[in-house]
């Protein structure tokens, strides 16, 4: 059949641009507690609806409702709240020092703290995370020393990575935090290999990986799902859909007519779509996926539906491409406020305690900042060029040794 109609090219467009009213009318807000919690050995084909729904536990009044309520002890909730608030205070502090010209670059996770913090708490301390640059909350929740984290960002003699990486690109094997590359997507599929290695050895450790909505367009994402499905790898594959990839809305990543969680269906993997600003829902979904993996039932894809409340990084100005008030209109609120309200509703927390905790974590950040700032630069008079040349290879080949000699004059 010959086509007589001239074709036209479709270019997706977000609901609102600067100067327009934010518009989230196309975002469904299902009630908390509506979805059942399937058994962990459910067939992936039987839970397709979870890829399109939204697991929510915290309702508008701060009550935890429904089958997904993880029933965490109040102490665990307070720990989660503190880790999220420390993450936010840390982000604020590092953003400020970047603006003062003391560090070259920084990436905040504001509004998305529940993702990394609740997931770190739901996973085992031995499980390895393959994060992006926006999961600093994993390190904070696992108690990684704040001075080391900040040393990495200051790229000075306090930097455990010896000044080699851009600020925010942490690495810590001891804390289950795989070295961040900076190239999007590459580590999502590596996590599958890590998980397979654990299965191969008969160990008990899982892997968990994170990728942004935007980066799901990279081939690595699809490699991860294919390989995880084929080998039933014990891995939790998290998609952090924060609606934006720098200036591109999630429709440019392929979210216009489907969800990111639904990608899993074609690969025969189970998928859960979760309110990413709901600490309890994130914790519960991650626990479900981890239990499933621990039972040798393979990988789960989790879409964490959230909103990047601030600029992409310190190099970005989001008011150039989205309405300035969009963040405040996000229908799922703020993860810290929501968990705090829940604790208060439980009678396990108060406004005063909230204010004290805020002051405490902000003070900790300031004090650590003073301490780290006082450390000498790596390449100053007291420094050496050694870290530039070592660890390129295990042993330094002759040509590099000669270059080092030349560099050191």
């Amino acid at each position, binding site marked *: 059949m010959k086509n007589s109609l001239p074709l036209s*090219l479709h*270019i997706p*467009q977000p609901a609102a*641009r600067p100067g327009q009213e934010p518009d989230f009318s196309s975002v469904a807000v299902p009630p908390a507690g509506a979805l059942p919690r399937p058994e962990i050995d459910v067939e992936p084909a039987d839970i397709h609806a979870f890829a399109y729904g939204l697991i929510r536990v915290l309702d508008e009044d701060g009550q935890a409702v429904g089958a997904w309520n993880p029933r965490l002890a109040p102490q665990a909730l307070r720990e989660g709240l503190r880790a999220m608030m420390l993450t936010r205070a840390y982000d604020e502090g590092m953003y400020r020092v970047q603006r003062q010209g003391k560090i*070259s*670059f920084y990436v905040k996770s504001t509004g998305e703290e529940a993702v990394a913090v609740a997931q770190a708490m739901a996973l085992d301390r031995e499980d390895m995370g393959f994060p992006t640059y926006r999961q600093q909350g994993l390190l904070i929740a696992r108690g990684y020393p704040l001075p080391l984290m900040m040393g990495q960002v200051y*790229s*000075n003699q306090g*930097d455990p990575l*010896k*000044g*080699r*990486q*851009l*600020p925010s*690109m942490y690495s810590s094997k001891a804390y289950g935090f795989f070295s961040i*590359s*900076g*190239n*999007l*997507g590459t580590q999502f599929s590596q996590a599958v290999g890590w998980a397979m290695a654990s299965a191969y050895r008969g160990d008990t450790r899982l892997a968990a990986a994170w990728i942004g909505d*935007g*980066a799901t*367009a*990279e*081939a*690595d994402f699809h490699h991860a799902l294919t390989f995880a499905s084929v080998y039933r790898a014990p891995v939790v594959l998290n998609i952090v859909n924060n609606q934006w*990839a*720098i*200036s*591109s809305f999630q429709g*440019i*990543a*392929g979210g216009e007519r489907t969800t990111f969680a639904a990608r899993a269906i074609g690969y025969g993997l189970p998928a859960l779509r979760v309110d990413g600003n709901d600490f309890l829902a994130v914790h519960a979904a991650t626990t479900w996926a981890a239990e499933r993996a621990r039972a040798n039932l393979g990988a789960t894809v989790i879409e964490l539906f959230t909103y990047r409340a601030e600029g992409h990084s310190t*190099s*970005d100005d989001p008011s*150039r*491409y989205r309405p300035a008030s969009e963040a405040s209109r996000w229908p799922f609120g703020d993860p810290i406020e929501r968990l705090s309200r829940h604790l208060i509703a439980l009678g396990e927390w108060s406004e005063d305690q909230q204010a004290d905790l805020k002051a405490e974590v902000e003070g900790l950040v300031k004090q650590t900042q003073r301490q780290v700032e006082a450390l000498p*630069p*790596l*390449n100053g008079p007291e420094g050496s*060029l050694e*870290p*530039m*040349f070592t660890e*390129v290879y295990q042993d330094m080949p002759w*040509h*590099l040794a000669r*270059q*080092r000699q030349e*560099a050191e004059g």
Partner: protein
Amino acid sequence: MAIMNMVQALNSAMDVLLSRDPDVLIFGEDVGYFGGVFRVTEGLQKRHGLTRCFDTPIGEAGIVAMGIGMAAYGLRPIIEIQFADYIYPAYDQIVSEAARLRYRSGGDFTAPITVRTPYGGGIFGGQTHSQSPEALFTHVAGLKTVIPSNPYDAKGLLISAVECDDPVIFLEPKRLYNGPFNGHHDRPVQPWSAHPASQVPDGHYVVPLGQAAIVRPGEAVTVLAYGAMVHVAMAAAQDSEIDAEVIDLRTLIPLDIETITASVRKTGRCVIVHEATRTSGFGAELSALVQEHCFHHLEAPIERVAGWDTPYPHAFEWDYFPGPARVTAALRRAMEG
């Protein structure tokens, strides 16, 4: 004629191309409404329409593959890869597909894509925002590789690249976008407006591919450079007070061997400067060519100044970036040799 920095000159080139040829279109990550992370496509979507300059999913292999398909159909895609450091996912599409399409189809299909991408150091970008991968492309038969060093050339070369029927890798020295940086990082930043090459015609013109420029005539030693290193070499010539002839290669493939040969035969000495890592860098090719073409005229060993053979280390920006001091030392060695 207007005064333009390199961002504006590149923008002007694309504006001209979009206006003249409906088959030209631009795409890449964040290039549409936002105008690109370096603002090079600013205003083009607004002026020319949604389908002429638009955002892509973050998938460099897909972006280039889409460009190849469009180019094979008859369009002239200008592809932006946000940083050269992120071009590797697209390497297979560039090397195995774009570069060979004409050859393997007996000329039946071609892929006249232009892949623009910011490269190089000097911005504290660490290992994923600082690399200089030109040799990965000059090594591939079927690709042209172009690197401008100033606004005038940037516009003229980009127009030539897009109008060229071969696939072109167009590497933009990002440290030069807003000023002619010469490696003296401790001195005040210079704007382009003080540089003669910031005088850029508003309309269409070309700087032909394959022609180097002698940016500083001299008798004592030839310096071969491109991109930001052209300005570093100029600074070194001035600092050392050596009568160096500085050649801006502008196009690496096809290379202007005549200009290089004539200069080295005259001076008898040669210093090659690039930001990229030294081993198997484009300097190795240049050194071999100079040796092959000028052996009997050489009075000293050919010198190479290049990035150290390490990943680009964030805290050591100025220990890594090959600045004027290293080029000056190489000039002195070449004069003594």
